[in-house]
């Protein structure tokens, strides 16, 4: 305790010394005077002291926890225990659903639009969670599937006047198809090589869309894409935003339901087994090729579907929306939220999309904060916000059996 304090004070003094020329001294070259900003010195000292102390405290806490875990003690935190309480879970879910449903009626169009983009990332995160979190296949080009969905709706709408609702499944299926196309060449790859190839795939998509003018109208993109129709009625901007918001809520619920069922199904278990140990997995009679392809296809399906919605929401798309940065953000959502955990990914998406949106005042420091948050996260909670929980099974027959024998 005392030692921590002492060390933190030393750190803060060191920082004061380091930042002194930058933060305190300012030379006004016009008037040839030196301005001393002593207040900054205090801020640096206090700030670095607090951060350093917090850092030490967290590290110490992690050590203690590890020790408890090694001795077989309870390592689940209070929040985790709360999450496992079923009645609390239902209450929380009901409350969240209610809040989600009244949200666009209470807040204005701007807020709803932000929320829609957060929900889009929720679906993208959940989709990538299948590929990365469950099946353990790193995918750095995930945004390409998102783009496939968006472009398929834009082009179908532009050329054939197809509506949103027909295009939605088509976008998903096309995403799936591209997932399989990407899946085939990388069946044999793993680790770093897999990352490079998927990265390349994402790049190829963008470059093709930029340069194949005949198909995609090049960098100028496609404009005037129809918004989703509501039984043939034309909606004004505010109403259609609310409408899209509700579509998005429905899509998120659908995604959660499906991924939850898949996770605890025969296929889901095969994905996780493949993530854990490929050699053992194949020795247990699981067809790796089939399992990998299905993981890519199902991951890409959601990106394709939500891509259609993205195109209809913005009514304009061009290749600039589908950069590597997007892939990186979606991957960060999955890693930050907790690989394989559905609730974690949802929280991660809200954090990573909403925080920058509401912290626009500090947008200059966005990347700095982002990087710092990632580093801290990897040190203190490498398993993500919510760590992966597995379904437990109760077998009732066993007790009766024991009595019989």
């Amino acid at each position, binding site marked *: 305790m005392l030692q921590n304090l002492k060390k933190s004070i030393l750190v803060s003094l060191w920082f004061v010394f380091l930042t002194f020329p930058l933060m305190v001294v300012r030379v006004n070259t016009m008037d040839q005077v030196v301005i001393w900003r002593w207040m900054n010195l205090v801020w640096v000292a206090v700030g670095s002291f607090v951060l350093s102390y917090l850092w030490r405290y967290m590290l110490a806490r992690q050590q203690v926890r590890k020790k408890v875990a090694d001795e077989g003690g309870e390592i689940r935190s209070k929040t985790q225990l709360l999450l496992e309480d079923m009645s609390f879970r239902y209450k929380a879910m009901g409350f969240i659903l209610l809040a989600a449903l009244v949200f666009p009626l209470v807040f204005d169009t701007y807020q709803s639009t932000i929320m829609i983009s957060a929900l889009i990332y929720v679906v993208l995160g959940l989709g990538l969670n299948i590929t990365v979190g469950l099946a353990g296949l790193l995918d750095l080009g995930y945004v390409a599937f998102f783009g496939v969905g968006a472009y398929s709706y834009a082009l179908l709408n532009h050329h054939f006047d197809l509506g949103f609702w027909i295009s939605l499944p088509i976008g998903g299926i096309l995403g799936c198809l591209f997932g399989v196309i990407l899946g085939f060449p990388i069946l044999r790859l793993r680790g770093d090589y897999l990352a490079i190839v998927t990265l390349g795939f994402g790049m190829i998509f963008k470059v093709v869309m930029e340069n194949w003018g005949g198909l995609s109208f090049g960098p100028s993109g496609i404009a005037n894409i129809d918004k989703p129709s509501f039984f043939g009625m034309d909606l004004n901007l505010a109403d259609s935003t609310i409408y899209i918001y509700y579509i998005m809520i429905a899509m998120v619920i659908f995604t959660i339901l*499906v991924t939850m069922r898949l996770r605890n199904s*025969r296929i889901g278990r095969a994905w996780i087994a493949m993530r*854990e140990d490929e*050699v*053992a997995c194949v*020795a247990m*009679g699981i067809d790796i090729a089939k399992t990998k392809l299905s993981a890519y296809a199902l991951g890409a399906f959601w990106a394709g579907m939500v891509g259609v919605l993205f195109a209809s929401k913005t009514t304009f798309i061009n290749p600039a929306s589908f950069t590597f940065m997007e892939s990186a953000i979606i991957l960060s959502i999955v890693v930050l939220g907790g690989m394989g955990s559905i609730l974690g990914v949802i929280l991660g998406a809200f954090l990573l999309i909403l925080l920058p949106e509401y912290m626009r005042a500090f947008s200059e420091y966005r990347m700095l904060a982002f990087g710092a948050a990632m580093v801290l996260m990897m040190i203190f909670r490498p398993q993500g916000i919510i760590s992966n929980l*597995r379904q*437990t099974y109760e*077998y009732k027959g066993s007790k009766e059996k024991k009595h019989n024998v």
Partner: protein
Amino acid sequence: MSEKKHKLLEVKGLTMDFGGLRAVDSVTLEVYEGDIAALIGPNGAGKTTFFNCITGIYNPTKGDVLLHPQGLKTRRLNALKPNKVTEMGLARTFQNIRLFPDMTVLENVMIGRHCRTQSGIFRAIVKTKGVREEERQIVESSYHLLEKVGLADFANEFSKNLPYGAQRRLEIARAMATDPFLLLLDEPAAGMNPQETTELEELICKISTEEKMAILLIEHDMKLVMNISNSIYVMEYGKKIAEGTPHEIKDNPKVIEAYLGEETDA
């Protein structure tokens, strides 16, 4: 004794080359129904490579691997992928434990049921009655297997949290879940203390008698091998140098030489 035993696994002249190195040199081996056969030999003799050839991890350079399940057609196993070999009825464990650490103990065994069940993606999403019934059966049979190896109390623990000996037993349960005719165990007693080894010995005998599975195991623990196996194959430098009952092997000069070195007159 009883009538002539049915030949289950037949390996004929199996050879495996890695470039210029012949790791397994025309090894012939047979395992009979109900047998516990052991494959022994000094380190680097090619035992694990031999296992990997049978189970499809390597594709053997020469030779045949044939499985004759009783009352069914003969199945040729070479050049099949490992998952196909498992489907054919040959399951294995690994020398260095290869469990799925972040899955529960029960789920590890449930993975073994994968190749004997078939519900696909769409039915899993809709969760049809058939899928639910299949899931129930998977849980039930996996649970029974856990009871058999004495791990039922740990069913919902993460498998990485199990003690070492229990992990070994879990690996055996997982292999058994694939309903094999023949169980291949790669050094099941490695790293176990004497008590755990005794328990393992009992477990292997139990599997052999109760489940009617033939067992082929690689092992360095001679006491275990001599106690439980009824036929032993000895390998050295990729070649099979002896075969026979434990009694014959014990006194075989070639085997003694392989393990202890040649006697010199010095």
